[in-house]
């Protein structure tokens, strides 16, 4: 089922089309939800709610821009609403000791778990703004409007989020595949040397 067929089917409230939409976009949207929400159940709740809104308000999609982007915006919005509803949406202010050191040497590839580990250890405010700015590509002005905060807060939160991320990377050096192998090899050699 192509994207157009899905959209047409959803407009006619065709359950097959709806199912197709779910099958096609739910993994990506679930990934989005996971980036925003630590809790797996919360992520699922937000996913269900977001997709439901997307399907039920399919008529509001005018067809300009990507359909995926439209669904994504709905899901992100839903995630933000969820965060706000549960009142864990506090901006952590740590203006002091802001070092701007944007480049660190880490592995090119990050495993899903690595990313999740990193994001999960960020406070909700940091993570949300990091997600919105870095991943979703929103401008600070948009984020400020969206979350009802000032642009400066959005900027500072982003800086703090990045700083915290670097710290986190440094503390638990995310081991790559090679690293793990190296670790295994080195441990094996030590074991052999003992024997």
């Amino acid at each position, binding site marked *: 089922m192509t994207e157009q067929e899905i959209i047409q089917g959803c407009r006619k*409230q065709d*359950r097959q089309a*709806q*199912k197709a939409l*779910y099958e096609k976009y*739910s*993994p*990506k949207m*679930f*990934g*989005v939800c*996971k*980036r925003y929400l630590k809790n797996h159940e919360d992520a*699922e709740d937000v*996913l*269900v709610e977001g*997709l*439901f809104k997307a*399907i*039920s308000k399919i008529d509001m999609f005018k067809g300009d821009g990507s359909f995926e982007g439209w669904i994504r915006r709905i899901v992100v919005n839903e995630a933000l609403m969820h965060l706000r509803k549960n009142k864990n949406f506090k901006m952590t202010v740590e203006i002091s000791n802001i070092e701007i050191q*944007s*480049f*660190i*040497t*880490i*592995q*090119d*590839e*990050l*495993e*899903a778990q690595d*990313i*999740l580990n*990193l*994001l999960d250890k960020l406070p909700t405010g940091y993570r949300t703004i*990091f997600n919105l700015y*870095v*991943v979703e590509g929103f401008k600070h002005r948009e984020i400020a409007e969206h979350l009802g905060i000032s642009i400066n807060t959005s900027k500072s939160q982003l800086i703090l989020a*990045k700083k915290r*991320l*670097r710290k986190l*990377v440094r503390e638990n050096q995310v081991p*790559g595949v090679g690293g793990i192998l190296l670790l295994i090899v080195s441990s094996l050699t030590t074991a052999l040397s003992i024997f």
Partner: protein
Amino acid sequence: MKDKKDISDLIRDNQHKLDERPSARTWERLESKLDNQRSRGNTFLYRKIAMAAAVVALVAVISLITVLSDNQNSQFANVNKSAPVENWVVQDLETVYTDASSNVRMVVEFQKELKERYTNPIEEGAQAKKLVASNKTFTGSVNPPEGLIAKLDAKNQELSLEKTHSNVSTPKEENMSHISEAESSPVEDVQVNIDLNEAKTNQAFSKKRRSTNTDDIAKDYLTLTQQMEWILGAWRENDTLVEWQKVNKSTILCDEFLLKEKRNTGLQLIDSKSQESYALVSEEGNQKIFSNKNSDRIILENINPNKFTITFLPAQGVKKVRTFFK
């Protein structure tokens, strides 16, 4: 660890690795939600229909009420219509016009009267001319009281005296006195006139009084005398002749008796000899019963036009009857 790369870029680039099929339960939840929505949509539809129906019903009720109230009003209006406003107006106008017509009639009548008055004017004479009643006009109908006549005579004498007196005076004065005479004589006339009028008014007054007290025992001034007029003339008692005559309006007398009527005491029978007066006590048919202070009674009874009796009933003593014939 090939290149130095921003962590944000790393996360952005590797975000797709987070993509994951959510649990099968998620679809079930979504599907149930969609089913709910569909049914809810239906219920929404039903609810919308119900709401619309309610609104329509409400509007209908309100319009019905307004229509009913309008009808009530219009019923009143119909009542009014049954007696149309034009008629009211006409009636009002009619009343107005009738009023107006009566007014007009009055005016016309008044004008007529005025016209008649102009065509047949009452001759009042000149302003200096006074309406004077001469003595002659009254002598026929009314007898002026004797005192008044005497008074008049006295005045005339005085006048004549004045005249004589004025004659004695100088010619100049004579002229003046002539003038004064001319002036004074009408004044005298007027005075006389006034006196006469007084007598007249008195008479009228007494008449009025009489008319009001017709049932009184002492009938009234003069009427009783009139009632007694049958007694006038000559009567025969045995061999003697007794003549009753009317001296004036209130007095009838014979040699022995005097019937005098007074305003206060009513009719009185006075014995000329003893000067004892008997007041009229009661009337029974043709009987007139008089009584004095000692309750001695005299009954005057007119038995028929040619016979009457006088009965003496002393309180202590013998009854005595005298009979008179024409």
